[in-house]
């Protein structure tokens, strides 16, 4: 190869990098504009809704909250209590004790006066069998509660058991340690009931970070910005992702993922597609993709909806080790899901799902870390060869940094103008400062975890679930 061919190849490579970055930035801008529009529309639409009217209606559709629990003995009693205090009439709660090795079941029996009942599971979805069986409370005040003790089979398997047992039209799948606000079910069920010609198959909500917030009696008393920088950075990251990203995808009806921490599903469809996949670490994304695919193939009009209200608060990892293992798992989940449903990508038969959402996820979510690493390696080689055009490098580095800071600030603005959760004096300044620091505090670790995830996926297939050590929400 002579030098001119090399030069041409390098030129093309530069163009590809540049084009990718440019497209990514443009897509961010477009998505945030759409998000803004959609958020305004949402606020307008709900500014005169009196949720109180519907909460007490016995005619509202039934919802089952399914909460899988594995070794949650520390907080399970408190958490269940908070689930039982939702302001919605027609709902019940199924706690699926997924073969816990601790005394979760005993604690629940003791606290809620449970007794074993005869029950035969209609296993529309195959799951691991029951262990101690099905329990209900003797006290009518806890009539909504049902505890199912089964053999360990993982989160997806536990959720499937819940799907089999639920008699409701809708199911809300949540992490047992999430704090659901008392109006969460009413707000989340509304999109299902609002549509007339489109079937809403699932709805997801914003996940907010509860670290350092004060929770008393299952109620969020005070919202604080945590001291831990890693958690702070994640707050900013969540604001960006939920307020600027998902809202737009909801408008485009292109949501591919509903957080496993809190989502409501149309049970009929969830069962028709066979429930959660027990062979992936990304079951929350996978089921949405599968449900969408099912609806596309049936050629029915459908929607995956999204509610921007802060309804579900959960604990975020506060150590880099746990954080990395969480993101590692998310990366593998994304890879598995996209791979399993390869058929959809760039397939006009699947409409905008195949031509827009899927490709976007593949290119800008799935591939982003890989492309970034290639870019870094390439840059390193250039440095070694002393081929770097520092003027270009520096000017574009500064530009992209400025862009990312500005983007975070816009996310802060959309929070302030809508839900304004961080009310304390001084928090605004901290958030701005964080926007400047976050690219250094969080991004390198996100990238590292994603690369680890790719590595584990391809070369370390046996890798088990990352253990998310729960500290439990601060309850007093």
């Amino acid at each position: 190869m002579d030098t001119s061919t090399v030069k041409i190849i390098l030129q093309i490579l530069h163009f590809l990098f540049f084009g990718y970055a440019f497209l990514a930035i443009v897509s961010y801008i477009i998505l945030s504009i759409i998000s803004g529009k959609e958020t305004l529309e949402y606020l307008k639409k709900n500014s005169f809704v009196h949720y109180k009217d519907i909460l007490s209606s016995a005619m509202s559709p039934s919802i089952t909250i399914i909460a899988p629990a594995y070794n949650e003995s520390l907080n399970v009693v408190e958490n269940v209590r908070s689930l039982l205090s939702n302001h919605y009439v027609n709902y019940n709660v199924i706690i699926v004790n997924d073969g816990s090795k601790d005394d979760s079941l005993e604690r629940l029996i003791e606290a809620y006066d449970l007794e074993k009942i005869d029950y035969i599971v209609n296993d529309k979805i195959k799951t691991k069998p029951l262990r101690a069986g099905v329990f209900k409370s003797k006290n009518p005040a806890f009539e909504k509660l049902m505890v199912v003790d089964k053999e360990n089979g993982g989160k997806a398997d536990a959720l499937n058991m819940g799907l089999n047992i639920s008699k409701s039209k809708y199911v809300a799948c949540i992490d047992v340690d999430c704090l659901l606000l008392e109006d969460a079910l009413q707000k989340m069920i509304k999109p299902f009931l609002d549509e007339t010609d489109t079937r809403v198959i699932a709805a997801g909500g914003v996940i907010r970070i509860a670290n350092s917030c004060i929770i008393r009696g299952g109620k969020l008393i005070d919202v604080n910005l945590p001291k831990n920088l890693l958690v702070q950075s994640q707050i900013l990251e969540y604001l960006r992702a939920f307020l600027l990203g998902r809202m737009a995808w909801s408008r485009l009806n292109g949501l591919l993922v509903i957080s496993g921490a809190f989502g409501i599903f149309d049970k009929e469809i969830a069962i028709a597609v066979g429930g959660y996949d027990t062979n992936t670490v990304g079951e929350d994304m996978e089921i949405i993709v599968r449900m969408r695919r099912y609806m596309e193939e049936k050629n029915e009009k459908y929607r995956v909806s999204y509610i921007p209200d802060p309804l579900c608060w959960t604990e975020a990892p506060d150590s880099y080790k746990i954080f990395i293992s969480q993101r590692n798992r998310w990366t593998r989940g994304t890879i598995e899901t996209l791979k399993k449903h390869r058929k959809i990508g760039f397939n006009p038969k699947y409409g905008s799902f195949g031509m827009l959402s899927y490709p976007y996820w593949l290119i800008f979510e799935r591939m982003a870390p890989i492309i970034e690493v290639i870019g870094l390696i390439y840059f390193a080689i250039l440095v070694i060869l002393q081929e770097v055009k520092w003027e270009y490098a520096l000017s574009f580095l500064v530009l992209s940094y400025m862009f990312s800071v500005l983007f975070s600030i816009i996310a802060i603005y959309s929070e302030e103008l809508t839900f304004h959760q961080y009310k304390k004096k001084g928090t605004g300044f901290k958030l701005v400062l964080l926007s400047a620091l976050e690219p250094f505090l969080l991004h390198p670790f996100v990238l590292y975890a994603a690369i680890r995830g790719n590595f584990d996926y391809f070369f370390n297939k046996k890798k088990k679930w990352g253990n998310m050590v729960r500290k439990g929400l601060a309850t007093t």
Partner: protein
Amino acid sequence: MKKIVLAEDNTTLSLLLKFRLEKEGYTLFMAKDGKEATELIEAHEPDLIITDIMMPFISGLEVISHVRIKLDMDTPIIVFSAAGQEEMVLKAFNLGANDFMGKPFSPNELVIRVKRLLTVVAIS
């Protein structure tokens, strides 16, 4: 002076009822949710409990079951409920509530019922 614990999460309404009942000569203890209510009941051993059914964290039903089963007290209990909660009202009666008022209600009627429950107790 007769003591009443009132558990209601609508602040304007509870303020209104407080004024109304204090005018009748009762001492009122106000709770915003079921948890506060049970604490007040344990601390003051009231002569009457008025509770809303739908309340955050600990519902009115649980307050009733707490009073009747855990504390084993037979203090008269009046529950408030909204339309469409008939089932809950039945449960409340099963747990041992003495009377109920469906929202919206007239505060004057509440006063009459309060008086009635308190005098019945006095006779027995």
